[in-house]
């Protein structure tokens, strides 16, 4: 049988923790289903872990040709060695065209290793795809979200692809009823001894309850340049938040960080000052009702998620803004 006549196959590898599917597993299922539809392929899901019948049954409620389970004591806790040793032989045997992963801290840790092991292509952080004039073209962010790259896959063999948070809607995943079957496993070995978990910022300020957040980014320029932003926060009764570089530079404590490795917030008003708008920051604040961005770069991606934008030097805009709000308060 020629390649063309062989049916195409998409695998979707789901993720879970503490007995619950990771939020992005459903997004990955939606993405895998859409890719399967575009290619006339079948979509099958995989789940790895120990004692995962309940989760497998949940995944089987989606429109999939099959749900494969890799159930093994050595997979109880995630380790890259465990996951790669379970998945590599299965991929080599099934030879799916694409394997879709949610782009999470866990998948980024092991998927490149898996690609190396099975000699697969690697396409991280996909935000969309289109089967058009240029063939099958995927988009992914580059240059910290300042640009979008359109890429094509060349050559033969499986491609491991991860989908960015929020790029595919979980609600669009089609439901159905899929058969569940155990994946044939070879030797599965964990390669990390897990010594424990700890909270990054103890005694943390809970920003998730704040109504108004004034968030500062690297553009603020230093710990000694924080006064106008603090004044704005005071005038508005707001909490101060920050992007990661501000925290990494010790300009503010770690419990003020917003984003994928910080807090998730959803205030009524979010004022982003000198923040470029990288995806790792956006995932932490995109639930905000009204977003204002002040940035000197008119092309800053933060403006894509903003309701109001001011292009300008924050050191000029902030004092003016504070003065206007003070006037307003005095007028009652």
């Amino acid at each position, binding site marked *: 049988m020629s390649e063309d006549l062989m049916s195409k196959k998409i695998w979707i590898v789901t993720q879970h923790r503490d007995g619950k599917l990771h939020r992005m597993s459903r997004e990955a299922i939606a993405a895998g289903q859409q890719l399967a539809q575009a290619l006339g392929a079948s979509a099958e899901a995989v789940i790895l872990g120990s004692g995962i019948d309940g989760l497998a049954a949940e995944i089987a409620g989606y429109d999939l040709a099959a749900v494969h389970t890799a159930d093994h004591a050595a997979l109880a806790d995630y*380790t*890259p060695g465990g996951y790669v040793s379970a998945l590599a032989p299965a991929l080599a045997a099934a030879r799916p065209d694409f394997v879709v992963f949610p782009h999470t*801290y866990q998948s*980024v*840790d092991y998927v*490149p*290793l898996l690609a*190396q092991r099975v000699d697969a*292509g*690697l*396409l*991280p*952080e996909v935000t969309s795809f289109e089967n058009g004039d*240029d063939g099958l*073209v995927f988009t992914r962010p*580059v*240059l*910290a*979200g*300042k*640009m*979008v*790259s*359109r*890429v*094509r896959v*060349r050559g033969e063999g499986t*491609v491991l692809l991860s989908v960015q948070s929020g790029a595919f809607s979980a609600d669009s995943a089609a439901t159905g009823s899929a058969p569940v079957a155990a994946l044939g496993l070879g030797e599965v070995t964990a390669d*990390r*001894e*897990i*010594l424990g*978990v*700890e*909270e*990054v910022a103890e005694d*943390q300020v809970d920003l998730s309850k704040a109504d*108004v957040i004034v968030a500062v980014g690297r553009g603020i320029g230093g710990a000694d340049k924080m006064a106008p932003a603090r004044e704005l926060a005071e005038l508005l009764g707001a909490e101060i938040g920050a992007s*990661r570089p501000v925290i990494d530079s*010790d300009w503010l404590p770690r419990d003020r960080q917003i984003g994928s*490795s*910080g807090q998730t917030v959803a205030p009524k008003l979010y004022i982003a000052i000198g923040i*470029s708008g990288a995806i790792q920051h956006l995932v932490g604040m995109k639930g905000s*009702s009204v977003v*204002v961005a002040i940035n000197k770069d008119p*092309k*800053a*991606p933060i*403006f894509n998620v*903003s*309701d*109001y*934008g*001011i292009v300008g*030097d924050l050191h*000029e805009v902030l004092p*003016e803004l504070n*003065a*206007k709000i003070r006037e*307003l308060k005095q007028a009652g």
Partner: protein
Amino acid sequence: MRIAVCIKQVPDTEARLRLRKDGRWVDEEDLPFVINESDEYALEEALTLAEKTGGEVVVLSLGPARVKEALRKALALGAQRAVHLQDEAFEGGDAPATARALHAALSRESFDLVLTGSQSDDNGYGATASVLAGLLGWPHAWLVMGVELEEGGASLKVVREMESGMNEIVRIATPAVIEVQAGINHPRYASLKGIMQAKRKPQEVLTAADLGLDPAVVGAAGSRLEVVSVAFPSTGAGAQMIEGDAATAARVLVEKLRNEARVL
């Protein structure tokens, strides 16, 4: 301890970007370049570990001639030697293709540890160093926020960032590839003495031929990914951009927040 650090040179995040004529990357003419952010933290971590154990730090970078400047900076900060993978054939590689070249260079010597950044600020694959770990057959960890040597360096206690504000603490054996996350330490500044000394430190240049690498397995030729084009995301979609000088913009914003959005 012998430690290799892979550093990439990337466009400064502050830089104004312009499209290159072919539309497939940014125009690099007059573009300011810096050491990738998380790689700077990796270098600092390597220098600290080497100081503790009396070891050597070797920096490696794959890229065009401009990369020499990044290597010189790393030497000024305290690395002993630099290796520059410079060859047209290396350019435009995806994560596996770049990892193949780095692997060939690293395999010529024996290291106890390879430190890298977690993600490049240009391609952002977050993958090159993990593929490299696979090629070396070493354990690795991505997004590392702490490294502690155990048993005289036979194993490492590694703090690894997870989502939702948690860290995982794991033990892995050495040799290992450690992919450092920004914020793990406070990178030092180069001293005048360091800058002077850097001029005399060895910088080796390696081509694909030097490494016995088939040009077809590295760079663009060895990549499964092919960039069709790059573009600016559609900016300000949905955002009302408020024009005028600072005072005007501030006044209009306050009015809008009060009367339109009703949040003031």
